[in-house]
């Protein structure tokens, strides 16, 4: 039977199964193949905190969502068009996200009494008609995988584990993806175990050919390549892009990169990435705790390295005092907070934007720190690089606010030419600059920046620390006027960075009925929503902040050019709080605190509400 191929502009697919079913791997490989096919894409894993939760349970379900298309893709997709459910629990957990008419591919072998019971189904949904509003494709995936691998001499366990490749093959057929790159990958990955490699290849092909020959699939889809900017691309995860950005910054600056970090979800991948790069003069130090993480970074910076520390909310709180020390000592370090749902331990694997006010104000005394927030996985590279540049140029700690959502998500990254990256100049103080005069550790340049004199440099011995310093000499003092002067000077130094960053751009018209102001990982969902509303002719624009402290100089002017301002955030309104206080403008809020990213439909609905359109 000749099967129809329907051309679509974009599609969202979600793979879901037990945390041991290999759904993350399946999703990642599907993503690589899709990228190679020239589509734009965005991915988001959703996995439980439990490493290996009991099989078949609801809390053991691991998911991976992928949105790809022939147009620009800004988010991992609101709702899946296709759900692959490897067991009843995966179906149960994800059913609420499906719209009527969505396609569900299920592994019917897994729908036995025990699994149905574990998932809390009273009767088998494949048989009781409860799924009648969806297009259900029921495939005995386990059986078909095992049949294909007979007589290979593999154990039952080894054969069963190949079933994710069967699923991958099936979806390749369904979305008209080529198998070559995956076959190559399988043989590289399992080079030491050719039998397993062969089995996975067989399973992949079996899935593909099953789609082709079985009568149950009536439709195939094709998604044409996207029109992306010309260049060479690769996929990056947000945390991976941060690591790349820091290595690039340290190489451009010509100083070693030092990372002091303590493992924490969802930031640990940065430590994994960087610890593999010893030949790039990257020193990673897995510290005894979060405080040691930042304190070793501060020491590293004092000694002439680019010190960084990476963490998530709970660790970010623990680092507060040391951030104040870095402010006082005026040393360049970068602190990455990969935000997760809080407070306290909260929901470690779930996303949130709840730490903005902590980053702005969460230290004793007046301790201003520049803040940068990437908008997407690939943008994490820019954030790490720019944070390092500012830290070094202004001798200050800088905070990068990422989120679980973009840290774990991935998208294509146009690989930059290392030579075209902006320069990062390091000027260590030299003895010859201070002949016959005493070195003054707090004598500032025209940007109010103090010199960086590193141990090992003869004649420039000096002491710094957390106590208030006298202007210029750096001597310890409690002189009241000096303190006030120094507090203002440190603040002014940070505010002046606004002269060194680009003006805020506005997507859409420079004035209009509504401005959607955003920061961080909500960018994509908002951009999608704004595009849809603009397509209908409404005067709605978006301004997305990369620099949160100091803010671009023209932001006030922009805010006053719109009748209404909407700030959607994954918190109770922290940016809204700052904008109201700073610019004295009324703002509308849209807040979601569910550990989940926005859907663009939620933004769209709020925009219409504010426009008075029903």
């Amino acid at each position: 039977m000749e099967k129809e191929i329907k051309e679509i502009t974009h599609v969202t697919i979600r793979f879901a199964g037990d945390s041991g079913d290999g759904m993350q791997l399946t999703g990642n490989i599907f993503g690589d193949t899709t990228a190679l096919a020239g589509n734009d894409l965005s991915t988001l894993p959703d996995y439980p905190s439990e490493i290996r939760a009991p099989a078949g349970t609801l809390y053991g379900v691991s998911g991976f969502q992928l949105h790809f298309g022939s147009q620009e893709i800004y988010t991992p997709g609101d709702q899946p068009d296709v759900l692959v459910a490897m067991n009843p629990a995966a179906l149960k957990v994800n059913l609420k996200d499906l719209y009527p008419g969505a396609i569900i591919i299920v592994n019917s072998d897994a729908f036995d009494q025990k699994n149905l019971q574990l998932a809390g189904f009273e009767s088998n949904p494949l048989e009781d008609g409860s799924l009648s509003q969806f297009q259900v494709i029921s495939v005995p995936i386990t059986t078909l995988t095992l049949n294909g691998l007979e007589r290979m001499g593999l154990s039952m366990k080894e054969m069963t584990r190949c079933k994710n490749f069967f699923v991958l093959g099936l979806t390749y057929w369904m979305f008209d993806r080529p198998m070559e790159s995956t076959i190559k990958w399988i043989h590289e990955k399992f080079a030491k175990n050719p039998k397993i490699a062969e089995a996975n290849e067989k399973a992949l092909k079996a899935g593909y050919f099953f789609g082709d020959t079985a009568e149950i699939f009536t439709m195939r889809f094709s998604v044409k390549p996207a029109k992306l900017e010309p260049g060479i691309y690769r996929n990056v995860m947000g945390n991976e892009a941060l690591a790349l950005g820091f290595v690039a910054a340290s190489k451009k600056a010509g100083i070693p990169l030092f990372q002091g970090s303590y493992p924490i979800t969802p930031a640990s991948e940065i430590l994994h990435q960087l610890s593999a790069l010893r030949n790039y003069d990257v020193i990673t130090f897995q510290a005894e705790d979060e405080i040691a993480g930042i304190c070793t970074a501060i020491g590293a910076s004092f000694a002439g390295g680019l010190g960084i520390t990476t963490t998530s909310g709970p660790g970010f709180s623990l680092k507060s005092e040391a951030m104040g020390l870095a402010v006082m000592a005026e040393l360049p370090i970068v602190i990455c907070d990969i935000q997760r749902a809080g407070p306290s331990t909260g929901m470690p694997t779930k996303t949130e934007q709840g730490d903005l006010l902590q980053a702005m104000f969460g230290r004793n005394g007046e301790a201003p720190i520049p803040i940068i927030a990437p908008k997407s996985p690939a943008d994490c590279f820019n954030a790490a690089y720019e944070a390092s540049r500012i830290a070094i140029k202004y001798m200050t700690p800088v905070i990068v606010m990422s989120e679980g959502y973009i840290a774990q998500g991935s998208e294509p990254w146009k690989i930059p030419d290392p030579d075209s990256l902006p320069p990062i100049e390091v000027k260590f103080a030299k003895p010859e600059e201070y002949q016959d005069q005493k070195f003054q550790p707090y004598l500032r340049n025209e940007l109010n920046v103090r010199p960086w004199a590193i141990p090992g440099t003869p004649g420039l011995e000096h002491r710094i620390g957390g106590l208030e310093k006298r202007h210029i000499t750096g001597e310890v003092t409690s002189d009241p006027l000096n303190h006030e002067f120094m507090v203002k000077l440190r603040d002014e130094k940070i505010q002046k960075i606004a002269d060194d960053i680009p003006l805020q751009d506005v997507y859409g018209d420079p004035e209009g009925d509504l401005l959607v102001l955003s920061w961080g990982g909500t960018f994509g969902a908002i951009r999608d929503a704004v595009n849809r509303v603009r397509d209908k002719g409404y005067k709605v624009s978006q301004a997305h902040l990369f620099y949160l402290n100091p803010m671009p100089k023209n932001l006030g002017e922009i805010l006053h050019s719109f009748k209404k301002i909407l700030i959607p955030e994954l918190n109770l309104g922290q940016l809204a709080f700052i904008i109201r206080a700073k610019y004295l403008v009324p703002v509308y809020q849209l807040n979601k605190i569910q550990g989940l990213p926005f859907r663009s439909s939620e933004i769209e609905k709020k925009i219409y509400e504010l426009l008075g359109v029903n």
Partner: protein
Amino acid sequence: MTTTTPEVKYTPKDFQSDQDVRWCPGCGDYSILAQVQRTLPLLNIKKEDYVFVSGIGCSSRFPYYVDLYGFHGIHGRAPAIATGIKLVNPKLSVWVTAGDGDLLSIGGNHFIHACRKNIDLKILLFNNRIYGLTKGQYSPTSELNKVTKSSPYGTVDYPFNPVALAIGTEATFVARSMDRDPKHLQEMILRAGQHKGLAFIEIYQNCNIFNDGAFLHLTEKEYKPENVVYLKHGEPLIFGKENDKGIRMDGMTPVVVSLKDGKWSKDDLLVHDEFNSDPAYASMLAHMNEKPGLPTPVGVFRQIFKPTYDEMLYDQIRKVKEKKGEGDLRKLFFDATTWEIK
């Protein structure tokens, strides 16, 4: 050990800063400062290659008073700050000065891990068994039942034995000395400075304001001979006003014996072996003074040699470079499946 061979011979004056020393008159810290300034010229290290790091407390003012690179950090974190400095530039000689509250209470975690990892730091513990800067609360080394401002009915806290703790972490150099014994303290500082790996010295230091006389029975000449035994490598443990007492091992237990009554001779005594790699031996010495009637040992309890963290780290960097070549950004960026959009 770091050697960077200065071209000039330094004198103690070279290590004095222009800052007024602001400890209370009579504080034991003055002696420690003087012994450090007297000893540093003897180490084969350029002035600019020393870094002194401290936390918070009276003793943490130390870096201001030596004319060297210094970092006055935050409470308890000196070992962590020092670790970052050492790992970025391993040729530096990095010293930590800390009090008992700083190092063993709020900074206890950093201390034990720096020891465990054998990071090449020199840690000087100024142990006065009290919180001085905050004006007289008990510390983690204050003795049980001690009456202080925060323990008017006496503490119900068992104290740490800092030397035993350091040995428990398997620190590679562990010693004890006293502010009132300048010569011995200088010797210990010199030995620590020469040691390759983490070196820890517990220094009994008198706080004459909040805990005056805490170590009187160990430091003053009328009591000292009966209460202190000097550990010397290869020599028997002998003490007493007339050198008439010794330590003998009764099974696993050290006991005091008289050398006067003819029953025991020097040959029966415990002979100190500071290079004994079994921590049980050093630990036995560390706990000795907790038993009634036994003297407090001072000197080097243990010195062993094993690769330092910084050494292994840079060795690993060298090996990875040999294997993979010097890191190249372009290579790193393209180290993934790539595709071209035309």
